[in-house]
């Protein structure tokens, strides 16, 4: 047990699995799989496992995705880490091949692979392509891949273990804004399921649902609301697909108020699916979404920070919905 960052927790999980399985491979692009955390040994997958298993490619995320899939089809576990700039370069391969091959081959194809897709959305000043947070929606519509988005270092580790051990393709979204989060994470290998949401705060007045990069602000907002006497229930989706409908429905049956919070664009954000599932199953509830407007994020910090959902927005929206 030690305080670990998101990426350290992930690489710790990977290192363990790569030691256990000599065939497992890792594809990266330019940024080596290296992580350090105070008091723990540096993890450097490239150094430890060599360039024969841990390969640095050119700038070709389509190839990374296709090669990862091909490695999986050859029976080797494979993971790739795709930087956020390339997280849609690989889209078609995941959508049309990784997501469909098991069904199309009637169960013959086996793909024990993980796509770590970096997301940004956190950095003012980079503009449109380098500050966007939108791929959660694109990837959760794809059938045949499990799309998850851990929001804490501990989940990051446990869900990476499950993702690697899962015989099906997993899209593992990494909101890079969580890079600096640190928490106590067990040293042992453990697994966290790929189909369960987490109730982070138990309450009864309103259900607030978010995921990934939205969670820190939502938890902050929940503290503020509690300080003001409200009892919010906070759910971290964690798994976008399959989505844990039961946990959502059970909560809103209790609270009758549902607020979703997304850093993704409003139209067809994950919250739309959350609301639709709950609305199909719970009568007489009230609903509200907080999300990024349907606009590419402008570079200017003034514009960007005003548009990106934050704790203040969540507090205000929750009060409106409950009040």
């Amino acid at each position, binding site marked *: 047990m030690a305080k670990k960052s998101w990426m350290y927790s992930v690489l710790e999980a990977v290192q363990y699995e790569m030691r256990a399985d000599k065939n497992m491979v890792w594809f990266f692009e330019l940024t080596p799989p290296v992580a350090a955390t105070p008091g723990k040994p540096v993890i450097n997958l490239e150094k430890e496992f060599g360039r024969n298993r841990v390969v640095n490619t050119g700038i070709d995320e389509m190839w990374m995705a*296709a090669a990862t899939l*091909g490695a999986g*089809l*050859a029976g*080797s576990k494979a993971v790739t880490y795709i930087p956020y700039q390339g997280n849609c370069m690989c889209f078609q391969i995941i959508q049309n091949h990784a997501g469909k091959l*098991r069904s*199309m081959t009637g*169960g013959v194809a086996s793909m024990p692979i993980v796509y770590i897709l970096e997301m940004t959305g956190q950095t003012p000043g980079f503009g449109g392509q380098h500050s966007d947070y939108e791929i959660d929606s694109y990837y959760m519509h794809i059938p*045949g891949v499990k799309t998850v988005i851990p929001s804490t270092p501990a989940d990051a580790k446990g869900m990476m273990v499950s993702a690697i051990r899962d015989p099906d393709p997993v899209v593992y979204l990494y909101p890079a804004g969580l890079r600096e989060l640190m928490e106590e994470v067990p040293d042992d290998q453990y697994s966290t399921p790929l189909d369960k949401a987490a109730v982070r705060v138990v309450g009864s007045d309103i259900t607030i649902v978010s995921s990934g990069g939205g969670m820190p602000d939502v938890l902050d907002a929940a503290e503020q609301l509690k300080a003001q006497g409200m009892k919010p229930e906070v759910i971290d989706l964690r798994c976008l697909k399959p989505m844990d409908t039961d946990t959502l429905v059970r909560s809103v049956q209790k609270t009758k108020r549902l607020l979703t919070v997304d850093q993704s664009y409003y139209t067809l954000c994950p919250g739309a699916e959350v609301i639709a599932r709950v609305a199909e199953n719970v009568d007489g509830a009230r609903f509200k979404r907080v999300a990024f407007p349907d606009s590419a994020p402008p570079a200017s910090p003034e514009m960007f920070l005003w548009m990106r959902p934050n704790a203040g927005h969540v507090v205000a929206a929750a009060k409106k919905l409950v009040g």
Partner: protein
Amino acid sequence: MSETIDVTRNDDIRDEPAADPIVSPGRRTFLKGVAGAGAAISLIRAVDARAEGELGYWAKDLPAAKQVQMYTDICRIRWHERTMADKMLTDSKYRGYDHFYAGQEAVAVGVCAALRNKGNFDEVDYVYSSHRSTGHALAKGVDMKKMAAENDFRATGLNGGYGGEMHLSDKSCGFIGADGMIGPAPPMATGSAFAIKARGSKQVVVVFAGDGTYATPHFHSALNNSALLKLPFIYVLENNLYHQYAHYSLSCPMKDIAEAAGPYHIPGVVVNGQDVMQVYNVARTAVERARAGGGPTLIEAKTYRYYNHWGAPGAKPGELGAFGYDPLAISSFRPERELREWMARDPVDISRNVLVAWGTLTRAQADAIEAAAKQEAIDAFAWADAQPYCKPEDGLKNVFTQGSVAARQFG
């Protein structure tokens, strides 16, 4: 050769490329040198090599049984195609569609004859195929009956009726599978080759891809990454001159697509795709190179398809090929004379003539093999016809390895 010839697949023979026999070392060394040089531009023209006394060194070493197996497989593919065409044209209950492979048989068979087609999944060589998959599947060792059932979407088909022709897959012989998209299969195949190199399992990966794949962005990715990483990967580009109704010159700025290998510093080889022995020669060279860690090869096989892009329009029951069909009056639609010219260089005839000339088979034996192949195809379609249809609810299965997804169509 004994007088009775067993035309069923003899995998023990097909799976062992003949051991290196003693032939003139000077000549062999020369040929190997050229093929393996990895020079910037090592474009080798093998077209009509035999006519010029240049038939490569490998084919001449083949044991008779292996030669016969190759001829047999060509016949089996041919009669599978013809039987299926007749089925489409005459049986309205038949639901399969197909992209026919007839005319290109020597490519699939020549290449697969140089591969390991049996063994554990980490021993057998892998083949990635295209939308035009039936020939590749048979050459690799897929069961004809199960394939025929799959192509008519039967529950007991090769892939349970989920896939059909464009998604055939059979791990038992290393047939990773067909893919209906133009482009992605080659880079996917390089990923398998990477996994093989990483685990040291000494397998080789072949992708069969059309001339249409040259223009895809994936072409560059597959060749560049396999060259950089020296992967055991062979890109067999079957240049049948057309993609759908467009002549390849509309999307390729060169005459020989193999020329594209140059900047990657890997061999680019042109071969006469109608002659199975010539195909075998270049494939075997590429396979040995790949297995020895020498990296990828781009093989361009010049060939032709006897039917149209898709289905059997223009074809008549009992007759080979499709003529005179040009629905959209498309400017670059293939001229009928071009088709007739290619049919005069038929891969079945060529392989039969070679074996007769070499004294491996008599004409009568060759004919018997073809007749048996025809019967096998007829039997396979009859078997398929008797298979059960799929259960609707099974559509919710096989999304993931375990369980099934929820029905959503009922609200």
